[in-house]
């Protein structure tokens, strides 16, 4: 199980038997629209508040994932989840509706892979037959909590990112059909002293590099082991920084494809998203919607998803503290490869 310093190698290879992605209207106008299970036309989802809308997204994603796994809600032993809201209320309140025993986790936007890694660990060690991992974010609730009111007319710099409205959920099982979860690397908190909340990519890039480097070291593999290494939400600025840092560290990144979910979900030409997407849902919906389909179709065989998170709060920011970053990596393998 424990491999190296900070990685888990799942010998039993738990399966990602089903997943679901639900997004808002803005994501529905992006290039990956056809890969999502539900695209809502109204970002409020006919709810009274942004917070309730976010919760609804998460509940929908969880329900679809469970239904698609062909099991009843009662068969899922644990739900591991988190989100960006204060006291992770979106997840807790969704767990109230789901009535599945619940472990709330927080890793900011890295929560998608943090929850998947933990759910896989629980399943791999025999702690559960089925475990659910899920996360969500909503552009308006995140803007409201972290930045300005949604209708406030402020000008964002080119390095700013756009929080994805959506939710992703996945069911991990001991047996079944679907991609295998091969390994996971839990990241350290890395702080390079970036204080600009409109440059989260630069704040998180060192954490992504640290986790990817640790993953290769722990599992004694190189980038060529994967068809695709994808970071969560570094967007344009952070992604180029991460690529340059790895080049400097002597990692032969050119042997694989290195992409970023935050750069895949929107169309830079037609959508006003500055550097790209961000938020818990960014890596969640791209992985559970888009990448999983590619794993199933055989376009991709082995991928490493490195979800990145900026562990700041509006209070720490106003008190002049820098933005710590974190990244968690999970390796997925197409079904045919794991036999």
């Amino acid at each position, binding site marked *: 199980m424990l491999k190296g310093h900070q990685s888990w190698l799942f010998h039993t290879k738990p399966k990602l038997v089903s997943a679901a992605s639900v997004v808002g209207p803005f994501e529905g106008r992006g290039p990956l629209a056809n890969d999502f299970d539900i695209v809502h036309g109204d970002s409020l989802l006919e709810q*009274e508040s942004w917070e309730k809308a976010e919760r609804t997204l998460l509940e929908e994603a969880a329900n679809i994932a469970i239904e698609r796994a062909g099991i009843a809600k009662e068969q899922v032993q644990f739900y591991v989840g988190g989100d960006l809201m204060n006291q992770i209320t979106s997840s807790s309140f969704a767990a109230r509706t789901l009535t599945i025993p619940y472990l709330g986790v927080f890793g900011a936007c890295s929560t998608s892979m943090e929850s998947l890694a933990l759910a896989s660990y629980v399943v791999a060690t025999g702690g559960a037959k089925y475990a659910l991992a899920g996360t969500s974010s909503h552009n308006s609730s995140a803007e409201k909590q972290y930045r300005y*009111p*949604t209708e406030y007319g*402020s000008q*964002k*710099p080119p*390095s700013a990112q756009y929080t994805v409205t959506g939710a992703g959920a996945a069911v991990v099982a001991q047996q079944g059909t679907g991609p295998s979860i091969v390994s996971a690397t839990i990241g350290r908190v890395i702080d390079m002293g970036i204080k600009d909340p409109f440059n989260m990519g630069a704040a998180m890039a060192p954490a992504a590099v640290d986790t990817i480097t640790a993953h290769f070291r722990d599992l004694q593999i190189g980038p060529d082991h994967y068809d695709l290494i994808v970071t969560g939400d570094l967007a344009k600025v952070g992604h180029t920084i991460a690529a*340059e840092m790895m080049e400097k560290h002597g990692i032969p990144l050119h042997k694989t494809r290195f992409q970023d979910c935050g750069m895949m979900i929107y169309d830079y030409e037609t959508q006003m998203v500055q550097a790209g997407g961000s938020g818990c849902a960014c890596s969640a919906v791209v992985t559970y919607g888009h990448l999983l389909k590619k794993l199933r179709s055989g376009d991709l065989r082995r991928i490493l998803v490195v979800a990145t998170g900026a562990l700041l709060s509006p209070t720490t920011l106003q008190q002049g503290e820098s933005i710590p970053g974190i990244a968690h990596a999970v390796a997925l393998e197409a079904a045919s490869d794991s036999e």
Partner: protein
Amino acid sequence: MANKKLKKLTPTQQEYQRLALSHMEKRPVAVNSLRAFLVGGLICVVGECIQQMFIQWGGWDKVKAGDPTVAILIIISVLLTSLGVYDKLGQWAGAGSAVPVTGFANSMASSAIEGRSEGIVLGVATNMFKLAGPVIVFGTVAAFVIAMIRLIFDQGG
């Protein structure tokens, strides 16, 4: 200033900050200034037209016509805010839409709308001045300081 900030950081952090800065896309200052000039100017032209209408057809004098003019600009701004237009204008126009009175109205209206889900009193009323509050505080302080200066040096009035 940048060097002073960097001094507190470790050498590794300093090196990284330099790397990060080199990848930062600069704010397009020239384009932003031009847009701010155009939109800010346009808002003022609209204001001037409204004021002239009050003077020409309403029979108000120039000082008195200012009040209803501002009121109309505020109503337009609040309408555009609640229709979800002003924030998009703000991204394009920057200071052009933020500096005139319409920007102040937008900051209050947007905060009020945002707070609605937390109720009328604690939501709308409490949040309304969240962004506009500092403007009022510093406006009042500045007025006080100027008034004191005038009182001391310009006793004759």
